[in-house]
């Protein structure tokens, strides 16, 4: 256990964004953007400190960062804990949040009159709230605190979905809320059962006492189903496309790139850290089968979309599918007594590269909409002329989604593919390849259409500021260059983690 003053950074990572929300609300008016951007800058420093600290211990003892709140150690109290998975997610989310903030600088500017307006206040406060809630999801070591974190995330996401105020976005927001509430209730139900059975909600303690018995199995099933509804895994995805496509571009980027990852991360925690010895390979296969269906269905429906934003939203449905392929791969390897680390690393890379690439794509779509005044895929000509950087970003982000080298998506798929072959589950590899093929079709269509020259005399509807394009490009470039992480000397993912095969006990 490492509890140095630096561990207090975990508390700050959660509370700093929320303090920003409080001050933003209090000061309000035209200053909310300033408050938000200041908070983002401070938050970046905090996350930087955590990463630096983690890298320091990583080369040394290799233990997770822990913080026991109020000095009351679990099971009575609550502890925060950041292992490699948490640190990576903290970092990825911080990058996306700050670049989205840069992008949104002009879109949610204070009103000229100096009077407070609705959309900027809500956007900036909810951006901070999403950040704080996600950080809490990543570092919380307690199942009930995680429930509160899930609800915070939902309450921060719903106003962004409905930010536009039109009837259809309100409907999408309400549907999203109902799905999400059922999801968190099922999660809570599972947590209640676990407390009834083992008398603790602390993840570390629970993982030591949980037994493969009917009660644990029921809890795991309920919690997983609930979280899948929140993650929008096929067939529980129907709420996602209208909710994500109807929001303003910057909000869509937050929702699609980040918010769905919160509940996904919890599935990962439950299966890999809380109850690895309860999980069966067939359950993992079932999860991956849903993922495979999501990949196929999501991509095919995406191909049939006429509007860019809906296409990107359906592409999220498909990409969420990928995130679940790692489950049977990792458990397959662990069952066979092999090292499951590459599968886990592959899955994490997939998540992070999707977060970066999807944020880039939604923001790019926003710029395209501003320039053209519409986002019909059939009529994208002139875009490359007006927005060269944005189209480059779109292509780079697309390349990462497809999995072209040296993108993060490539490295992720490479690791997952080799895990599939190694564990003798080639069919998941086949699904990945097919998904990549389908993805490449729509990415290709979008890029080619945007490259078409505009009609003579065509003028962009709005001139897009250069820095917005640069923010999008930075996101896409990070996704594209993420593959170079393979060159990194340390595997941060495994920081403070016990190999799965050890947790399960030798088969």
């Amino acid at each position, binding site marked *: 256990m490492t509890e140095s003053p630096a561990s207090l950074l975990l508390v700050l990572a959660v509370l700093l964004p929320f303090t920003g929300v409080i001050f933003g609300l209090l000061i309000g008016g035209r200053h909310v953007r300033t408050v938000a951007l200041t908070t983002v800058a401070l938050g970046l420093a905090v996350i930087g400190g955590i990463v630096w600290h983690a890298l320091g211990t990583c080369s040394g003892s290799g233990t997770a960062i822990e913080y026991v709140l109020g000095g009351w150690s679990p099971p009575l109290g609550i502890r925060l804990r950041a292992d490699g998975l948490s640190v990576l997610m903290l970092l990825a989310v911080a990058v996306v949040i700050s670049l989205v903030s840069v992008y949104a600088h002009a879109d949610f500017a204070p009103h000229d009159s100096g009077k407070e307006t609705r959309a900027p206040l809500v956007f900036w406060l909810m951006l901070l709230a999403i950040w704080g809630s996600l950080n809490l999801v990543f570092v919380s070591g307690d199942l009930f605190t995680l429930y509160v974190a899930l*609800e915070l995330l939902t*309450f921060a996401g719903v106003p962004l979905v409905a930010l536009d*105020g039109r009837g259809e976005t*309100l409907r999408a927001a*309400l549907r999203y809320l*109902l799905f999400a509430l059922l999801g968190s*209730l099922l999660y809570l139900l599972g947590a209640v059962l676990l407390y009834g059975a083992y008398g603790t909600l602390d993840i570390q303690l629970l993982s030591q006492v949980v037994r493969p018995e009917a009660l644990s199995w029921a809890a795991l099933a309920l919690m997983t189903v609930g979280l899948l509804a929140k993650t929008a895994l096929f067939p529980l995805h129907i709420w996602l496309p209208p909710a994500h496509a*109807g929001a303003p571009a910057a909000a869509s980027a937050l929702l699609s790139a980040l918010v769905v990852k919160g509940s996904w991360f919890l599935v990962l925690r439950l299966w890999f850290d809380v109850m690895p010895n309860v999980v069966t390979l067939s359950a993992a296969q079932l999860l991956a089968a849903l993922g495979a269906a999501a990949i196929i269905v999501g991509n095919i429906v995406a191909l049939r979309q006429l509007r860019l934003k809906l296409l990107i939203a359906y592409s999220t449905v498909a990409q969420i599918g990928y995130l679940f392929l790692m489950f049977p791969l990792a458990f397959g390897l662990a069952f066979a007594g092999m090292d499951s680390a590459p599968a886990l690393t592959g899955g994490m890379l997939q998540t992070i590269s999707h977060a970066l690439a999807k944020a880039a794509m939604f923001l790019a779509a926003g710029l395209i909409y501003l320039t053209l005044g519409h986002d019909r895929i059939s009529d994208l000509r002139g875009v490359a002329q007006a927005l060269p950087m944005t189209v480059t970003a779109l292509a780079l982000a697309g390349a990462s989604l497809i999995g072209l080298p040296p993108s993060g998506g490539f490295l992720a798929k490479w690791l997952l593919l080799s895990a599939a072959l190694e564990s003798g589950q080639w069919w998941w590899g086949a699904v990945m390849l097919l998904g990549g093929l389908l993805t490449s079709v729509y990415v290709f269509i979008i890029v080619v259409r945007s490259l078409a020259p505009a009609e003579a005399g065509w003028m962009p509807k709005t001139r897009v500021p250069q820095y917005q394009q640069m923010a999008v490009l930075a996101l896409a470039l990070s996704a594209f260059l993420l593959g170079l992480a393979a060159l990194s000397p340390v595997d941060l993912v495994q920081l403070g983690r016990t190999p799965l095969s050890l947790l399960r006990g030798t088969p």
Partner: protein
Amino acid sequence: MNTATLFGLCASMLIGLGLYGLLTHPHPLRKILALNVIGSGIFLLFGAIAFRGAAAGMNADPVPQALLITGIVVAFSASALAVALLLRLFEVTGDVSLANEDPAAHKDTSKDRPHD
């Protein structure tokens, strides 16, 4: 049968009832109500578990009871947000249907403005 088991079983049935209501009612307000029934069932189950944990001179385990208070408040906030959203939807569209809008709405019409 002891008190905890009795209320635990009652809670299981409440959760099932709520789930059925949530899945079958088309009216969003009924769905919100059903979610509240599910929530109450979960809380009651947790209460039964707390009651089983009576020890050290306490009539019930206070940790779940404290968590329940948090849970009830969170559930209320969720209901309030959902109701406000529903009323706003009614105000804007004159309807409360959650059904998918007709496929034509997915096509681009130049009059709508998805974002700016």
